[in-house]
């Protein structure tokens, strides 16, 4: 037994609980080590006290009592920790509440239709409505429609992530402040002979956003011609619809608001920002249906002209497992 180990036997000396070997080791070490001898000598007082049976019994009785409960102040570290945890939880709750993701805003915009060259030869048409820019209208949906709307918006976000360059290219311009105060109904009742409707069809109530057709849906920067097409394809993140379309006059691409020649046969180029099944209807007649891939242009077969000066087609994109999205297309002919 080393000297250090022998020192650990000191506690057994006063209580007289050392075995013979332990005593021998302790005393032998004490004879060699003055410090240990002094420590042993100091233990003498305790040994003497514990040699009294009554004193030993009193100490035993004291040790039998349950350990005294810690005073309240000994819990201070725990109380502090609990308080800090509570504050942290509250902060997280507040942060989550304030971090609620902004609801998507779909901007409806009515702009004065540019006067393309063919319009000069056209018969007098009703005067175009004065340029009206509707304020941004917050998408409203009843609670029951929220799951379907969320599904559509999720698909929108997913596709937006696929086209970040487009998003960066055309940030949505803020609406004029003066018009922001107009009620939403003013937009819906705005005199506009050409309107397109985007209908996000929910299971119960409909989420409907109307937008003027003077500028084709999603082609916010469209000024007509090729520039309009390019601008349309660069629609902003928030307002970009899931469906965009242009007119193919032969191999040339034209803006959706182009007034076609009478009897002209055109095709449509459709760009879906989500994969799914595309269906083009005119009335109850299905003109074409085809699966489409996200961001892969789809061109319809030639659409023969009719006698009507204006045709309304309905384009529906049905994402797999999602709510169908319907877009009304308006083809105008110079009859």
């Amino acid at each position, binding site marked *: 037994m080393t000297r250090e180990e022998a020192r*650990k036997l000191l506690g057994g000396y006063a209580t007289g609980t050392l075995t013979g070997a*332990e005593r*021998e080791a302790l005393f032998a070490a004490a*004879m060699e080590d003055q410090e240990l001898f002094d420590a042993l000598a100091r233990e003498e*007082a305790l040994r*003497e006290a514990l040699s009294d049976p009554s004193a030993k019994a009193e100490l035993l009785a004291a040790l039998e009592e349950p350990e005294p409960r810690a005073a309240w102040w000994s819990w201070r570290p725990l109380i502090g920790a609990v308080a800090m945890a509570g504050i942290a939880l509250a902060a997280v709750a507040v942060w989550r509440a304030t971090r609620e993701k902004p609801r998507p805003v779909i901007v409806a915009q009515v702009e004065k239709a540019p006067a393309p060259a063919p319009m000069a030869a056209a018969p007098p048409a009703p005067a175009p409505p004065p340029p009206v820019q509707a304020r941004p209208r917050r998408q409203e949906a009843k609670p029951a429609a929220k799951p379907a709307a969320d599904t559509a918006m999720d698909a929108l976000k997913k596709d937006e992530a696929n086209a970040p360059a487009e998003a960066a290219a055309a940030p949505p311009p803020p609406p004029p402040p003066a018009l922001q105060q107009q009620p939403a109904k003013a937009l819906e009742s705005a005199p506009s002979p050409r309107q397109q409707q985007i209908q996000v069809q929910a299971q119960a109530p409909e989420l409907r956003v109307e937008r003027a057709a003077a500028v084709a849906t999603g082609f916010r920067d469209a000024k007509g011609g090729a520039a309009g097409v390019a601008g349309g394809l660069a629609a902003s993140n928030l307002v970009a619809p899931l469906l965009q379309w242009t007119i193919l006059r032969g191999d040339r691409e034209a803006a959706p608001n182009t007034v076609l020649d009478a009897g002209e046969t055109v095709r449509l180029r459709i760009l879906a920002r989500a994969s799914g099944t595309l269906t083009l209807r005119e009335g109850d007649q299905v003109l074409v249906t085809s699966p489409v891939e996200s961001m892969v242009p789809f061109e319809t077969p030639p659409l023969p002209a009719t006698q009507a000066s204006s045709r309304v087609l309905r384009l529906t994109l049905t994402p797999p497992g999602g709510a169908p999205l319907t877009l009304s297309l308006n083809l105008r002919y110079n009859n």
Partner: protein
Amino acid sequence: MIAGGVDREHILARLRERIVAYAASHLSRDAAEDLAQEVLLVLHEKYPQLERVEDLLPLSLSIVRFKIWSTRRKAARRGEYTQVPVADIPLPDPDPDPAVLLERRELRERLVRAMATLGERCRRLMRLKLQGKTFPEIQRIMGAAAINTVYTWDFRCRKNLLEAMGGDWEAKP
């Protein structure tokens, strides 16, 4: 027998060195020398049959403690520290010294208070020791893997107890 006598002489010589060094930390050097001599005298005259260090050392420690205490009392009685009128010096009493009794009682009370501050393991260990259990027995009872574990526990518990009592078993004057 001769070998035993040589051993005893060797042990006593060693004891004297240790006692002088220890006593010198409490008394003057001369007083420490005298005290060691008195201890050896007692061992020589009253306990000539003891030859082993396991017997001689604890006995000498008891004598040392008694002698130091006695020396201090004598000094007080002689007025070395305070002058006391002769009429105030009490007559010798065959009963235990009240001062000793008081000292023991105070030590006992301090021990009770200090033990109340120990942790559960120390309290259990101390309880077993006061019940007379040896360290190997305590090892079995407390389920320690090795006897050294019990030694370490006891060493720490003793240290905690000593700290709770102010660093010394005896109350400082």
